Every structure is written in structure tokens, then in C-alpha cells.
């Protein structure tokens, strides 16, 4: 716009810098704190300059919270959740859009209604299902046929238990559905004319065309998976399957000695880094995924 507005420009920069202090300031405090010694971090007023103590603090946090294991588990968990969501939602959307099956409305609404059932409101019974996966089927079979079957599969303390209950996704399914709707009808017609069946059409045309959607979905779902808190907290009791969000509690400074917040902050910084890198490096995709899934 061709207009000279020096005061408004100065005010704009003032606002943007204020926003920077509010939103990025906490990161700077975390970084500064994570690099200081025990004496430095407990001195008032706080010094915002980073010091050289980060590696010592990080290795102390690494050992105290068993971060190697937790980070490995979190990568497995976030990775499985992401792949599961990206694959299963594409398949469901394909079934909803490309077949005139009488069940497609049922599929759509079955997925849609899950939006209204967040984990927090069904946490106990979901835990029960995870503890005994086949219970619903056993009861159904007993109800329908009167036969008692005794199969049990306990998901607690396993990667399956960490991921399976979190893989169903309404937002992902809608994202694909919306994308498939915008594709021209001629595409499927042409494929059919050339003799391709639905399965081949799905794998060789739809999936390659959905590449941007998949990448966008992958970024937001990875962040989602990494940041899961309540579910792992409830179902993991075996430290072998501990995730990073659970190791946060091991990082809390003890009340009895001088609080070593430098170690805590170093550990927290390590835990924050993977999703932060995804959002920073793949921001274009991340933003696209966010805007698209909420529409």
C-alpha cells in the first residue's frame, strides 16, 4: 500500500516485539535457565544470559528421568499413532466417498460422533477395554450365541496399548473426505475406462494425489502423538514403556535440597525439542494441516 505511516509503523513494530516477548520470552528463559549452574539459577534477579552449563545439566536430567528410554518410547508412540491415523483415515474416507454403499452414512456418523467423546469423559471404561481387549466381543458372542469364549488380550504396558486407542481420527478422515470430494469425477471414470479396479485406483491415483494432505496430516499428528499425557499416565505402570510426558514428574526438583531448576529446565527443553523442530522446520505443512482439518 502506498501510504506513509511512520507512527503506525512504529506502533506495529512495538506490538510485534511485545508479542515476541510474550510468546518467545518463555523459551528464552528456559534456555537461559537450562544453561546455568545451581548458584546462578537460584540468584535473584534472574539473569537472562545463557551460560555454559547446558551439557552438564542435560546429562544430569538425562540420567535422572531416564530420558533415553522415554524419548525412544515417545518416538515409537508418536510414529505409530501418526502412521495409523494417516493410513486408516485415508481408507475410511475412500470407503465413504467412492462407493455408493448404504453403509457409508453409518461410517461417516460413526466417525463424526467420536468428536464428542474426548478421552477425559470415557477414561475409566476405555482403560477397562485396554486391560481386556476382547471383553466386548466375548460379551457380544455370549449375548448372541450363549457361548462362553475365554480369550484375553491385555494391552496395558505395551506399544499397542499406548497407540491403538488414540488412532481413530475424525479430523483426519474429514480432511481426506474433503479432498476426495474436490477431485473431478472424470478421474475415477478414466481409471475405470482403463480397466483399473477400486483398489488399484486407491493406491495408484488417490494416494499419490493426496501427498500434500498426508504430509500436512503427518506433521500435526506427530505433534499430537508426542504430546499425549493422560492416556500413557494411566495405562503405563511398567517403566519400560514410560514416555517423555511421564518423565516430566521425575524432573520436578526436590523440596528438601536447593531446587535444581537448571536440571529440570534442561530436561524439559530436551522433551520439548522434537515437536518444536517439526513445527519450525515443517511450518508450511503444519499450518496447512491445522487450517485444513478445522474446516
Amino acid at each position, binding site marked *: *500500500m502506498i501510504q506513509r505511516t511512520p507512527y*503506525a*509503523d512504529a506502533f*506495529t513494530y512495538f*506490538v510485534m516485539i511485545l508479542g515476541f516477548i*510474550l510468546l*518467545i520470552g*518463555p523459551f528464552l*528463559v528456559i534456555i537461559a*535457565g537450562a544453561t546455568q549452574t545451581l548458584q546462578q539459577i*537460584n540468584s*535473584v*534477579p*534472574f539473569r537472562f544470559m545463557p551460560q555454559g552449563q547446558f551439557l552438564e545439566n542435560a546429562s544430569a536430567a538425562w540420567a535422572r528421568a531416564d530420558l533415553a528410554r522415554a524419548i525412544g518410547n515417545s518416538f515409537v508412540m508418536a510414529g505409530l499413532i501418526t502412521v495409523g491415523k494417516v493410513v486408516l483415515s485415508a*481408507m*475410511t474416507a*475412500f*470407503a465413504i466417498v467412492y*462407493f*455408493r454403499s448404504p*453403509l457409508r452414512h453409518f*461410517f461417516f456418523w460413526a*466417525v463424526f460422533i*467420536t*468428536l*464428542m467423546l*474426548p478421552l*477425559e*469423559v*470415557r*477414561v*475409566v*471404561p*476405555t482403560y*477397562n477395554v485396554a486391560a481386556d481387549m476382547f471383553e*466386548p466381543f466375548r460379551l457380544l458372542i455370549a449375548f448372541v450365541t450363549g457361548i462362553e469364549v475365554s480369550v484375553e488380550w491385555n494391552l496395558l504396558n505395551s506399544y499397542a496399548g499406548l497407540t*491403538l*486407542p488414540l488412532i*481413530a481420527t475424525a479430523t483426519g478422515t474429514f480432511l481426506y473426505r*474433503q479432498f476426495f*470430494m474436490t477431485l473431478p*469425477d472424470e478421474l475415477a471414470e478414466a481409471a475405470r475406462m482403463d480397466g483399473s*479396479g477400486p*483398489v488399484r485406483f486407491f493406491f495408484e491415483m488417490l494416494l499419490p494425489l493426496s501427498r500434500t494432505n498426508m504430509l500436512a496430516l503427518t506433521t500435526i499428528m506427530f505433534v499430537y502423538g*508426542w504430546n499425549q*499425557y493422560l492416556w500413557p499416565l494411566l495405562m503405563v505402570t511398567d517403566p519400560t514403556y514410560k514416555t517423555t*510426558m511421564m518423565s*516430566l514428574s521425575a524432573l*520436578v526438583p526436590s523440596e528438601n535440597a536447593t531446587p535444581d531448576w537448571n536440571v*529440570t529446565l534442561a530436561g*524439559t527443553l530436551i522433551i*520439548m525439542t522434537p*515437536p*518444536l523442530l517439526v*513445527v519450525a522446520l515443517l511450518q508450511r505443512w503444519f*499450518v496447512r494441516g*491445522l*487450517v485444513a482439518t*478445522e*474446516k
Partner: protein
Amino acid sequence: MDKRSVFKSVWLPILFAAPQMLLVFLFFYWPAVAVLRWAFTLEPPFGGNAEFVGFANFVEVLTNPLYWNSVMVSVIFALAGTLTTIFIGLVLALAADRQLPGSGLFRFLYILPYAIAGPAAGMAFRFILSPERGIAASLNAMWPDFWNPAKYGSHALIFVIIIFAWKWAGYTFIFLFAGLQSVPKALTEAAAMDGSGPIRRAIDIQVPLLAPTLFFLLVIMMTEGFVGADTFGIVHRTTNGGPNHATEVMVFGIVNEAFQGLNYSGAAAQSIILIGLIMVFTFIQFRFVERRVHYK
């Protein structure tokens, strides 16, 4: 809204949808039915089958002052959190939309807090806003007890709202910035020709045209405040509901009632009420959003 050209097969769509349907049935609907059953039944304290008690569990929940306390806390948390995030996001989006040199960098940075999990942010803010350190320590030295979330309920509530707002401001920023991009440039240019300055243009043209986005964010953020995963995580990792139940939001109450109090029926009744609330929000959101989405 249907495709003209579709494939004919009976069992293929079922096969393709089956994996997700199975997960949805096992981990959403089966548990939801259990919640419904528990809400209307009560397990006798010394074993035996659960008996149907009608609305007794709801009456018990609704006559419990602690429950109403959690409702109040949730309303304050969601409303204050929502308004703060939308306000910050709006002001920053208006500033960044002016496309001054360097605003691209700010735009990149503002989104970063959204990557951080609520509990991890809570951990860091326990240090950043600690009453014994940093800015708060200096203020406390001047006015004793100016800021002490461990002691005062109102401070603790403000504390968790700050963490929520910090994380979600970048999210509202993304949507409002995208909304501003679609405001026709001709409108703002015409206003500039008529002699209105940038602030006047923002208030009289850009913000009114953002009304749909603002309304959408209002609904989304209210839902997030009431039942979002971060709401539980932030509270659990920082104040743990205290001091004296001052930060006990509804989701925290439900999880606490179930796993600490082992009162499944009470927790189920609370869950049903919350699901009703979510349904209202979802209904508003989709009535409104469906009108915004157009397929070619």
C-alpha cells in the same frame, strides 16, 4: 454432495472402513455405553451386581458444592483463556498483516508455542512464574504476597490460564492471519484513499470482516478450554487442582473422582453432563462451518 462416478462393490468399502470402525467401536462406543450404564446404576459397596438407581447419581453430583465449584472454575478457565488467546492472536495478526519488513520472522516465531505440550509448558512456567524467582520475586519483594499461586486460589487460576493462553495464542494467530489475507485489498486501499489510517482501517474494516473466523475460534477455543487434552495436562502438572480446589476444572474432577475416589458412577454422571455440553458446542460449530465450506 455425492460423487457421480463411484465403484460398485459391496464388501470393499466395508473392508476399507473396517479397521477404523473396529477401533472406534472398541475405544469410543463400547466405553461410552459403559459410561451411560454407570451413570444410571450404582455398585453396592460390598460387591454384588450394580443396581439401577435412575437419576440418583445425577442428583448427588448436582447437589455437591464441589461439583459446582469445578463448573465455575471451568467456565472461568475456558472463558478467560478463550478471550485472552483470541485477543492476543487478533492484535498480532493485525500487526503482522501489515507486511512491514521483518514481519515474516515474527509470524514464524508466534506459531512455535503451539508445538509444546500443556504439561511440559506447565513445568517450565512453574519456574518462569515462580514467586521466589525472576520478575515475580522482585514484585513480591515490593509488595509481599503480590503473586503466590501456591497459596492463593485466584493466583493459581490465573497461572493456569496464562499457560493455556501462551500455548494457544499462536493457534488463533494462524487462523486470524489467514482470515486477514482473504480480506479484499481493494477495500482497505479504498479506505486509505479516503484518508483513514491503519488503526481506523483495522477497527472498521478488517475486524468486522473477520467476524466468521472470530466466532469459529470462540467455539473451538471454548471446547478446548472445557475438554481439551491440554486443560487436564496443565492443571495436573502444575497446581494439581489446588490450592483448595481452586483450579479443579471439570475434566480434572472427572478423572480424580474415578481414579482417586473410585466413584465410577459419580464420574460417569459428570461425564454425561460434559458430553451434553460438548454436543452443544459441536452442533453450533458444524451448523456454522458447514455453511462456510463449499465443494466445487
